[in-house]
């Protein structure tokens, strides 16, 4: 996973994340004033916009937005800013998969969004990370982060997102499964294998995000050194 933060000037937080051929740029603005139809009386309203690399936004992007929303909503400390509004824009730069799939884009979007949220200073209760997994038709092998051609050979494809944090001893604390979205043909044991593999990968990504954020913080306070 390659990441950069703070790439855009006119929004509060931004990031670029790319992973095996999929590249997404994300911007976050907020907490700011909502339009009246978006306002929620007790919590932070969240707008997620996904724009595809090619073509216009369609139902495909709506579904992606919905999946990303279900991952980010529990992570946001949304009761800290009632009647406020956070806007997350995700622009896919390289899809890395055909239009019939969204798994790679969704998982990269989740990682990009969480980085941009951290960059923007939007309060979060936990961190999260996302990955995608495919199970091949032949050999029933689990492939983490498949490439476009590997994906096409998969019998089932899965997006997996995990809520993570660090407990008081400094150990990684797996908090909850945020999203598992599976499509294709699979059985119960494969489902559990995906859950197991996904957890490992998400923990790995979390440590990666951690070091990225460490660099970011160091850069933020460069004038202190």
């Amino acid at each position: 996973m390659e990441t950069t933060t703070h790439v855009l000037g006119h929004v509060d937080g931004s990031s670029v994340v790319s992973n095996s051929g999929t590249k997404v740029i994300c911007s976050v603005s907020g907490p700011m004033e909502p339009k009246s139809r978006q306002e929620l009386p007790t919590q932070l309203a969240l707008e997620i916009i996904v724009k595809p690399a090619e073509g216009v936004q369609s139902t495909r992007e709506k579904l992606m937005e919905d999946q990303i929303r279900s991952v980010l909503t529990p992570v946001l400390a949304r009761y800290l800013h009632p009647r406020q509004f956070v806007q997350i824009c995700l622009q896919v730069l390289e899809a890395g998969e055909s239009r019939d799939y969204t798994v790679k884009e969704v998982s990269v979007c989740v990682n990009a969004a969480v980085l941009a949220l951290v960059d923007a200073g939007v309060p979060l209760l936990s961190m999260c990370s996302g990955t995608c997994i495919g199970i091949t038709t032949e050999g029933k092998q689990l492939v983490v982060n498949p490439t476009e051609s590997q994906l096409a050979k998969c019998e089932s494809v899965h997006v997996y997102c995990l809520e993570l944090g660090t407990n008081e001893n400094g150990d990684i604390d797996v908090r909850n499964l945020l999203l598992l979205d599976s499509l294709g043909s699979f059985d119960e044991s494969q489902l559990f294998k995906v859950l197991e593999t996904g957890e490992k990968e998400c923990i790995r990504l979390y440590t990666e995000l951690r070091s990225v954020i460490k660099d970011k913080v160091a850069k933020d306070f460069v004038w202190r050194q």
Partner: protein
Amino acid sequence: MAKDIEISNAESKFILEALKLKQRLDGRSYDQFRDVKIEIGEAYGDVTVTMGNTKVHCRISCEIAQPYEDRPFEGLFHISTETTPMAGAQFENGNNTGEEEVLISRMIEKAVRRSGALDVEGLCIIAGSKCWSLRADVHFLDCDGGLIDASCIAVMAGLLHFKKPDVTVLGERVTVHPIDEREPVSLGVLHVPICVTFSFFNPDDTEENIKGEDNAEISIIDASLKEELLRDGVLTVTLNKNREVVQISKAGGLPMEALSLIDCCHKAYGIVEKITDQIHRVVKQDTIARNQYAHILSSENARET
């Protein structure tokens, strides 16, 4: 409607005062175009243009479609310029009815598509039944002024770089060769139009119709976002390297003299020439970089045979 950016009286006054002293906030001179950075991505027709804090991404793509009935020999070409709040919270998602959004999309449309920069007849596969439908998706990533100029560069660089899959036509049957299977084909770009935007200020805020030595009117090239918000007039000229004026757009604002229009075109030409060369250079460099790889492959093949 999204909210506007607030500029305080003090700030606007200061920016104008500085302009009078030939100073711009970012240290540029009046006629200085920002340095243009053109980056090319993995895919064909994937271009990011950075000009200062302005960043625009353009992606060219194509698919097979049916030509319009009244134009059976022409392919389809569509430029989509949709704003998202990524470029700044003043933009609204999916709302392309705002004045600025409409202006941007009209200008790009006029500068690139209607100027015939792309040979649409070259997109024809079978007259009247099949053709390529080409899309240029312009994504505004960061807006610090000059979106029109940056988008135009991005689209043109994208078109020059893009390659469409090769096709074989056997009677009525069309075979599309995936790009990893057979060398794809470049598009027919007939000329490279480049937009240069001038902004005008009238810092003394008085009606000045007599243009003379003591004329306080200021003209600058490639305004930043704040300069755009404060300007009193705007002119966009589109030229190509053949010294052809593709289009001129001046929608209201401060009136200007005919002679100064010509002066602007002269100034713009220098910039157009430089940027056109830069685009060609970047595209060529990328082609060489890609070919190096292909070269190794083909030499291996040569040894086998």
